[in-house]
């Protein structure tokens, strides 16, 4: 029993100190976001600020740059990407899982091959395409290349495979069209999988920096990650208080959503492990 207690305590000691290191950036970010400037440049470790400057820091972060606009851009882009991915992937996944057709095998192999393509590898042709379409620096440019998610097709196909064929036969006898089956029968059964995929997709694109960096120029089209970088280089070279406030605002939505629905988030984020 003595050994057991010792081990338990040691375990907590190790895990708690590791956790503290892992959390330090978050803690420091939030703490700095409410510190006045003179306390930030203090050459001593002070965690709780003597003077609360949260109000002015957050005010500067929200007014000096259109931070809320960036957030709105992020929301529009991520939601648009997710919805188009679902609209494109779900019917294809249904066809692959439940219908017999010539070329099915080839299509599936093509999808498996496309799964391996990292998005950065096709960014040059994407840029040229967006240029040709006149979609540079627009929502369309941010969304269109991601409207096809082969991972989404693959995932939904795996899920649809588990739906019994009898359910589809019954729906056909009840007079549903194929498209009707997809949206009225398959999608409702796949809600949990869609939620996981949604989290995966939204988190990935909210955090994405590479493609927006290439396709976006003008201030009003910036997504949150671009926005906070722009804020750093334009306004707040050294005013760390407002900068940390801006970072906090941008990090907050996903972190809060994660804390509220941990299980779903972990499922969604680790889903790429299924590939």
């Amino acid at each position, binding site marked *: 029993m003595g050994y057991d207690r010792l081990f338990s305590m040691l375990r907590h000691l190790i895990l708690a100190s590791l*956790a503290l290191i*892992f959390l330090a950036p*978050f803690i420091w970010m939030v703490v700095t976001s409410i510190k006045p400037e003179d306390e930030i440049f203090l050459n001593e*470790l002070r965690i709780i600020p003597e003077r609360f400057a949260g109000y002015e820091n957050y005010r500067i972060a929200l007014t000096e740059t259109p931070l809320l606009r960036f957030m709105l851009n992020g929301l529009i882009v991520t939601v648009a990407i997710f919805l188009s991915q679902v609209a494109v992937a779900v019917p294809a996944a249904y066809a*692959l899982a439940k219908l017999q*057709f010539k070329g099915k095998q080839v299509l599936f192999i093509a999808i498996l091959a496309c799964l391996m393509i990292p998005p950065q590898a096709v960014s*040059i*042709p994407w840029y040229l395409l967006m240029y040709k379409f006149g979609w540079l620096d627009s929502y369309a440019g941010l969304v269109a290349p991601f*409207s096809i998610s082969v991972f989404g097709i693959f995932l939904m196909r795996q899920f649809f495979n588990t739906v019994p064929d009898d359910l589809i036969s019954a729906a056909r006898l009840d007079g549903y069209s194929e498209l009707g089956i997809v949206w009225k029968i398959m999608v409702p059964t796949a809600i949990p999988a869609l939620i996981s995929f949604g989290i995966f997709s939204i988190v990935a694109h909210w955090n994405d920096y590479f493609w927006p960096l290439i396709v976006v120029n003008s201030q009003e089209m910036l997504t949150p990650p671009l926005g906070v970088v722009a804020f750093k280089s334009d306004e707040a070279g050294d005013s760390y208080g407002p900068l940390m406030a801006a970072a906090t605002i941008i990090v907050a939505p996903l972190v809060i959503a994660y804390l509220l629905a*941990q299980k779903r988030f972990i499922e969604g984020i680790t889903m790429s492990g299924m590939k």
Partner: protein
Amino acid sequence: MSVASVTSLPVKNTVLVENMSAVSREQRSAWLLSLPAIALMILFLIGPILSVIALSFTNWQLGMTNINWVGLDNYREMIGDSTFWKAFNNTLMYVGIVLPVSVIGGLLVALLVETRMAGKALYRTLFFLPVMGTLIAMSIVWEYILQPDFGLLNMVLSKFGMSGENWLNDKDTVIYVLAGIGVWHQLGYNLILFTSGLLAIPCHLYEAADMDGVPHGWSRFQLITWPMLGPITLFVLVITSIKAFQVFDTVAVLTQGGPGKSSEVLLHLMYTEGFEFFRTSYAASITVIFLFIILLITVIKIRFIDKRVHY
């Protein structure tokens, strides 16, 4: 009897015809349903990947109207380009640190978290948090933490009587610092994958080990835990190395490859060549190398997992 068989013949035929039309109807709807996906796949994935490969054999640059095949010129230039080799080596170095540390670390922490009930859920939550934080925003936080004069790290170090450094401006440390941030970002992800692997081990195996007199600790880990984690470990290794090869965000925000290319990595080099200097075809050839590495890892994964899937 014969009358009946004569009349049944045409009936059979119509059934056949109806069946065939049902089959072709299914074909048609299958194609219609996958058409948007196929079209977009060709437009945004297959077409682009082929054109990147094709571009890498030309001298085309953004804005040029004519295009010439130059064979392997771009690759020849790349081999002679010391910056490319710096980026290549730095990327390998980065992966070489992030991969073992975040995988072994993730496994050890997962084991430590799962051995006891107390605080299990809380620890999982905390360690996963860095995965959720927008890496770009957190990179800015890291930059501030690593700031030499009033950054958190150096202040803490000086508390312990150690002198800090100018972490991001030191040629010798910068890649390790970036790798450290990479580990910070990746470890929780691996921890969660390992945890799910641990939870999937049937508890009957541990009970059988109890009955068979297998001692706790190492013997048990060696007999059950480690072999049962085999497949998930492979996943973790592959995913971590693919993610690590894609390192870009931290470099772009914290160092831009500096100082003196000492933190240049493949993707960042490709970005600067392609979208800052607009040397499109050269960037394409870097992309091809990058793609080749990623494909290599994936192929290794497929081979291994096909082998391992038997048990």
